[in-house]
Structure formats: structure tokens, C-alpha cells
């Protein structure tokens, strides 16, 4: 067991722990913080796996954008006052059982398909080392070559625009515009 392993297992424990916390903490804000924790530790895992750029994006965009947005929403809606009540224990138990069953079956399916243990055409170590780096990814993202991702990159910008338009459209205060619907 070398240092990478130690780091990995520690990180995995962290991820898992914060994931469990994220889904079991009753307070939304706490859950969101736990999620942030989980995502952070995942970024760490990415680093371990030489996916530096992914880790970077994870921290900057995911945590810095999405989770913060969640938190912001929580804060925005918090003064609605009442806490959402706890689920019925039977339901919680059901959810747990469902999740465990799901997990078991998922692992079973993976196990049934454990073809990964036979290594396929693995990338060369050198290539691997820079695969997760900014340079490699940047080149691929903006490349029109057969292995480039220029087209999806362009399209995702459309998607983001669409989401932006949509989110604004829905979230914008309706007070100003003339009545719409009876409610």
C-alpha cells in the first residue's frame, strides 16, 4: 500500500462520508454544505487520477457555481418559515432498502460485466499523464480533428444560453407583467 492508496482510501472515505451526510442531514443548508464537501473531495480524487483540469472545473464551476447557487436558493427560500417535516419512518426505511437493493444490484451488474479487469487498449503512460491536463483538454475541446470536441463544445454553449433564458424566464418576478393565470 503506497501513499496513493492511502490518499485514495482516505479521500474515498471522505467522499462517502460527506455523501451520506448530504443525504441524511435534515437541514437543507447542512446538506448543501455536505454536498460541497463531497464535491471537494471528489475533486481531490480527480487529482489523484491525474485529471487536473476536471478537478479544477469541479472546484471552480461546480462548487463555485452550482453549489453556491443552491445555497443561495436555500437562503432565498428559507424564510418561508416552516421546516419540511421528516419523512415517515416507513418511507425512510423503504428508501434505505431501495437504495441498498439498488446498490447491490448495481454492483452485481458491474460484477457480471467485470470486463475491465482485462485491460483493453490502454493509453500509453505518457499520454495518460497529460490526458487530464489543461493543454490536452483544451486542444481536444477546440479541435476540428477527428478526435476533437468542437461541435459539442459549441452546442453546449447554446444549451447554456437556453438554460439561462429559461431560468430567467421562470424565476423572474411576475409582478411586473400583466396577469397571467388566475392564481
Amino acid at each position, binding site marked *: 500500500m503506497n501513499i496513493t492508496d492511502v490518499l485514495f482510501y482516505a479521500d474515498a472515505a471522505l467522499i462517502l462520508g460527506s455523501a451520506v451526510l448530504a443525504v441524511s442531514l435534515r437541514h437543507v443548508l447542512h446538506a448543501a454544505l455536505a454536498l460541497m464537501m463531497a464535491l471537494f473531495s471528489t475533486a481531490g480524487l480527480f487529482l489523484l487520477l491525474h485529471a487536473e483540469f476536471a478537478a479544477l472545473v469541479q472546484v471552480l464551476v461546480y462548487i463555485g457555481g452550482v453549489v453556491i447557487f443552491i445555497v443561495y436558493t436555500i437562503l432565498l427560500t428559507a424564510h418561508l418559515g416552516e421546516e419540511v417535516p421528516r419523512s415517515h419512518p416507513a418511507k425512510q426505511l423503504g428508501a434505505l432498502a431501495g437504495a441498498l437493493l439498488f446498490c447491490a444490484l448495481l454492483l452485481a451488474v458491474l460484477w457480471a*460485466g*467485470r*470486463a*475491465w479487469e482485462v485491460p483493453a487498449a490502454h493509453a500509453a503512460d505518457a499520454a495518460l499523464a497529460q490526458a487530464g491536463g489543461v493543454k490536452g483538454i483544451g486542444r481536444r475541446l477546440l479541435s476540428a480533428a477527428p478526435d476533437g470536441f468542437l461541435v*459539442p463544445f459549441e452546442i453546449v454553449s447554446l444549451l447554456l444560453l*437556453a438554460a439561462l433564458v429559461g431560468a430567467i*424566464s421562470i424565476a423572474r418576478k411576475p409582478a411586473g407583467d400583466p396577469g*397571467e*393565470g388566475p*392564481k
Partner: protein
Amino acid sequence: MNLSTAILLLPDALLLLAPFVVLFVDLFFNPRHEARPVLRALSWVLLAVGGALAAALCCGEREVVFLHAYRVTPWMLWFKVCFTGAALVAARMAEGCFAVADGHPARLTRPGEFFTLLAFAAGGMSVTVSALDLITLFIGLEMATIPLYVLSGFYRRHLDSAEGAMKFIIMGSLATAFVLFGYSLLYGATGHLQFSAIAAYLAEHPGDPLVRAAALFIFTAGAFKLALAPFHMWAPDVYQGAPLPVAAFLSTASKAAAAGFLVVLFYGPLAPVRPALAPVFAAFAAATMLVGNLGSLRQTNFRRFMAYSSIAQAGYLLLGFLAEREYAVGALLYFLVVYLTANLAVFFVYATVRGEDVAAVNGLSRTNPALAAVLMLAFFSLAGIPPLAGFNGKFWLFAAAAGAGRYWLVLFAVLNSVVALYYYMNVIRAAYIEPPAADARPVKLPRADALLLFVLVALLLVLALWPAFNRAVFAAAL
């Protein structure tokens, strides 16, 4: 890339441009944010797309690949025809909702955003079927979905609308998670995201269990969008909450996109695993038909009713996947085009009479005979009664299942359409036998709408009888 290949890309280019045109018109030429200018802009662009599609189908080459990531072939063009057509009709349907008086439950506002998102969704669908790698496919499908989340929640003052949208988003996200898991497994198994590379890998390792597991996960995305049981439960709630044109779009273009998504994968890179999935298709088809048909019985809310009906139709659609590619794609396209036509016609009639309930068309044959005839023909087409094209569409699909030797499934499907006939005929009964409501009076249909309805109904007959369409879609699939 010469002209005859470039022309294949023109429709997509125009379609992806459409939202910007709408936004542009709305921002700069529509200071009062009225519906008509943006609708007109969108309509013209979509008509241009249609023209481009026609041109591409007529004089285009068989294939063009753009930047190694985007491919257009004739069968994809037919899918795009579906998306464009549905968007066009849905847009026209929406116009009435923007025009109704303030306070009417069907009233829509913010036409700029509405039509922009509609165009985005259509564009996303178009991207989905043309994808050549997993990322494009994934992004395309999301682009086809996320605007619809918004559109289904577009009534900002309707709790129903927000509730539907919320359910749609939550369930859609779960489906996304599933499909992403599938992609990750596929990527893990093959080491690539490009379809060509995946196909090459599968050619070498045809029975890779990881790939099959991936295929199952990926199937969920299609199942969700097609509303196959038990992934269907969002559909009735979302349709009911959504504005009518959006429900129409969801039940037509969105299903076509999902079908396209499944075709892209299961007749593309994942073709080798498709035979192994035949029991999945069969079982899901059966369950979906049954659930859809049972749900439709005694529904009073029109959109809910149509949601269940669409679920059942998706069940029939799934039968197509039991056949080999040469047959299946043609049959699916045929079915989709006629299904879309009929469904849009039905929605259009309800949009015209502004009905929330199925009973809104009571006595329609007395007050609006032409509309009633449209409704009747469309429903009979959905039920699969000749000489309407719905009959052929279903027949082709049943033939697909029969060709795979699944006669029991065919029998089950046809018996299901007996149930479907029951509830469709109930609507026809309402229109033709029930007396009209006391305050019912003839609806004045704008000429463009009348023309559109006429075209839709005429299509139902023409597509059924004129073999050129059949030849075209089946030839396109080769």
C-alpha cells in the same frame, strides 16, 4: 464538401439559428413583446428549415459528416422533419394562447422566451439524431429537454405548471444520471466516445457484458423521454400542468427525439447488443401499452388523457425496435410522422376550442363540423383505423414484431388498441353524439390555422395511400 452535401447541413444550421432570430426579433423589433412578430419570425425560419429539409431530401447526397462529429443522412432528415413540423404547429397553437384575454387560464405571456425555448428544444432534438459521439448525443438530448422543463413550467402563476415542471426536472435528472452512468460504462468498456470507435470495439468484442449493462442504462433515457412504463409517470402530470402547445410538443417532437435517440444508438454503435435487448423491448412495449391505455380510460382532463394516449402510442413505437435496421427505421419513421400529424391535429382542435376537459368538444359536429371532422379523423388515425395513415403506421410496427416472431406481443398490442379505440371513440362520441354546451358557438378559425389543419388531415390520408412516403422513409433508412 460540395453543394449537394452541404445542403444536408442547411436545415440544422437554420434550426440552430432560429432561437437567435427569435430573440433578436423580440429584443429589437418587438418593444411591446407581442406574440405575433416573434411567432412570425419563428414560423418563417421553421418554414425555411422545412424548405431546406425538402431540398436536402430531394437533392442531397446520402450522407454528410461535419467536423467528424455531426452527421446528416436522409433518415435523420426525416426525424428533423418531425421536429420542425411539430415546432411549427405547436408555435401556431401557442399563438392563440397569447391572444386570449387576460385572466383566461390558458393565457400565456412572454412570447419571446417561449418561442426561443421552443426553437432551442427543436434544435436540441435535431442535434441528438445527428450526433456522432456520446457527448454530442448527450448534449443534444439535454438541449432537447431542458427548454422543455422551462416550457412546461411556463405559467408562472399556475401552481400546476410549476409542480409539473418540478416533477419533470426531478425525474428527468434521475434519468440523466442513469444515462450518464450508462455512458460512463460504455466509455469504460470501449475507451472511446466516438461512435465509430465504439462500433469498432464492439465488432471485436461483441458480447461484452459491460456494454450490455451500459446499453440498459442508456435505454432509460429513451424510456424516460418516450414515457415508457414505468418511466412514464411524469408525463400525465407534466402534460396537465404544461401549456397546451407545450404538451402537444412534448407528446410529439419530444417522443420523436427519444425515438431518434434510441435509433441512433441501437441501430448505430450499440447495434450488436440490440438483439440481446429484445426481451426488454418486448416487455416494456407491452407494459407501456397496457399502462397507457388503462390510464386513458375515464380521463376527463384533456391533456392528461392525451398523455396516457401518448404513452400507449410509445408502447407501439417500441415494437419497431424488434426488427432489423433496414425495416425498423423506416417503420418507426412512418409511424412517427403519422402519429405526430394526428396528435398535433387533435391538440390543435383542443387549442382552438380552448378546452381543458375532454368534454370541451361536446357537440362540436354541430357547432364546427369541420373541426369535428378533423378531430374524428385524427382520433381514428391514432386508433389505427384505415384508410388513415395511423393504420399503416401501426401495421408496419406490428409487422416488425411479427417478423421477430413475437406474435403474442402483436396480439397483445392489437387487443390494446381495442381499448384505445374505446376511449378515442368516446371523444368522437362527445363531438358527434353529445349535444353542444348551451353557450357553445362556432369558433372562427384564422385562415392559416384552417390551412394547417387541412394539411394535417390531408396528410393523414395522403401518407396512408400514397406509396412515395413509405418508399422515401424506408429508402432513407438504408
